[in-house]
């Protein structure tokens, strides 16, 4: 306690919550993590289909996906969250209620959050995947077709696997943002890390301390993800037979992720399509 200087920082409260968080806080942390993972996974799958639909021959389908992307990228996530949970119920369209999946109760608010984050992120993922598919050299499609693959087979066995390499850096950025954006789910009452912190704050009045703890846990999540992402990128590079010089420190990989440069290794043979340069990592 540093009360004499007018600064009220409860050091012992801070340390005890940091090193030995309450069960409620840990549950909030877990909710944050799975909300982000489930939403990002579903959004990636949905985004792939949206990206493929954008290449479809059927014009109305292309237009529908364009409209979808336009709306979800052009409106605030918070507004989408309110409309999907409270709004749909208010107009009597749909009310999210608790359901049980494999013996696990999934609260309605969590479902609404997953649905919203997925729909929102899928709009971004579809753009990322679209640009990444375009970044695969057109000679690859022709090579696949020349061996008798149908365009669908070529897409599945040749183009999509190669596009993955271009998808990972911007996807990593989005997942980083996703983990932080899950805090918005607190407004509809999802007990994730931010809401739990708010509750601890209002009962203990150690506002700065508990949010500092929360911030450090968010930082830990995004940092761990940074390592995981680098490992995935290196693994993909190895599968391409590309050997990159080891990075000098984790900080340099952090910096690289903020401004994604696709395939930064000088040893890479193929050029990277300029279409990818339109991807904006810091758009939220």
């Amino acid at each position: 306690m540093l009360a004499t200087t007018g600064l009220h920082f409860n050091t012992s409260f801070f340390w005890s919550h940091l090193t030995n968080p309450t069960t409620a806080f840990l549950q909030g942390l877990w909710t944050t993590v799975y909300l982000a993972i489930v939403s990002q996974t579903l959004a990636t799958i949905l985004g792939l289909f949206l990206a493929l639909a954008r290449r479809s021959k059927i014009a109305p389908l292309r237009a529908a996906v364009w409209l979808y992307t336009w709306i979800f990228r052009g409106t605030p996530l918070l507004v989408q969250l309110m409309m999907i949970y409270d709004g749909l119920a208010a107009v009597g369209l749909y009310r999210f209620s608790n359901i049980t999946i494999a013996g696990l109760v999934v609260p309605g608010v969590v479902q609404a959050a997953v649905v919203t984050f997925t729909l929102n992120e899928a709009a971004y993922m579809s753009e990322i995947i679209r640009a990444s598919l375009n970044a695969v050299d057109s000679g690859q499609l022709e090579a696949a077709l020349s061996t008798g693959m149908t365009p669908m087979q070529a897409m599945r066995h040749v183009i999509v696997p190669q596009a993955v390499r271009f998808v990972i850096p911007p996807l990593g950025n989005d997942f980083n943002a996703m983990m932080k954006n899950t805090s918005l789910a607190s407004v509809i009452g999802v007990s994730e890390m931010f809401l739990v912190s708010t509750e601890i704050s209002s009962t203990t009045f150690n506002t700065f301390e508990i949010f500092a703890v929360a911030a450090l846990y968010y930082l830990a999540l995004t940092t761990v993800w940074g390592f995981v992402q680098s490992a995935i990128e290196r693994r993909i590079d190895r599968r391409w037979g590309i050997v990159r010089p080891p990075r000098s420190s984790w900080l340099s990989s952090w910096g690289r992720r903020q401004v994604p440069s696709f395939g930064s290794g000088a040893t890479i043979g193929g050029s990277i399509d300029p279409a990818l340069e339109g991807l904006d990592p810091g758009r939220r």
Partner: protein
Amino acid sequence: MTEASSDVPTRATAASAATASTTDRADGNGAQATSIVEAVDVHKRFGSLEVLKGVSLSVERGEVVVLIGPSGSGKTTFLRCINHFEKIDQGRISVNGRLIGYRVDAKGNLREERAAEIARQRAEIGFVFQHFNLYPNKTALENVCLGPRKVRKISRDEAEELGRRLLQRVGLEAKFDVHPAQLSGGQKQRVAIARALAMQPKLILFDEPTSALDPEMIGEVLAVMKSLAAEGMTMIVVSHEMGFAREVADRVVMMDDGVLVEEGPPRQIFDHPAHERTRAFLAKLL
């Protein structure tokens, strides 16, 4: 092209697909069976630019045709039409007596085939690209095996055995598990040839297979192509390698400005060209 004539050779195609051998595939379908590629009055436009202005060419089974001509004369475009990478605006192309990319509808008009049928046709036509177009995320062996596994649907083991055999054949037994990034240009092109061979094609199209290579690597690729020719593979090769053409080609065809200017045995075309445009082109080449 009538319905009937497009039907009969379809059966011939299926029958000869069963025999992997590159020789003796003329299985009693008369005159048609000896001519494997039949291009008649092919026209191709890109917008207002007419690139092919009525190209007719017939290639016999086992024949090696070398296509020469100035840059921009339409050689690549013609090759691409043969496996329907490009739609044609007029004329027709058949391979093995079967129209490529099109079928004749009830009214006698040409209609584009379904994607699956076009793919089936392409499986029998190998294509070797100037820039190799190997799959960078796959090893040499995987590059060769992917087509047989996904298109012919053979097992992984079977495909790998085939792949190893073909890579050995092109002299790359030491490179099975190496990625394209670690191969020289000559090695890449040999993998690409093995990849084409893995589909057991009846015909292989080569688009300037050595022009992206350093001079010291050209020989190894041409040697593989020579051995293919010796085994009776039908090949259409866009190339300006005169030595190769003299030694291997049954026929040299000169293309200029979207038309075939003249054709004949290599010695005739190179030593006694009949056409002024051929003479001018060869003079620049030397």
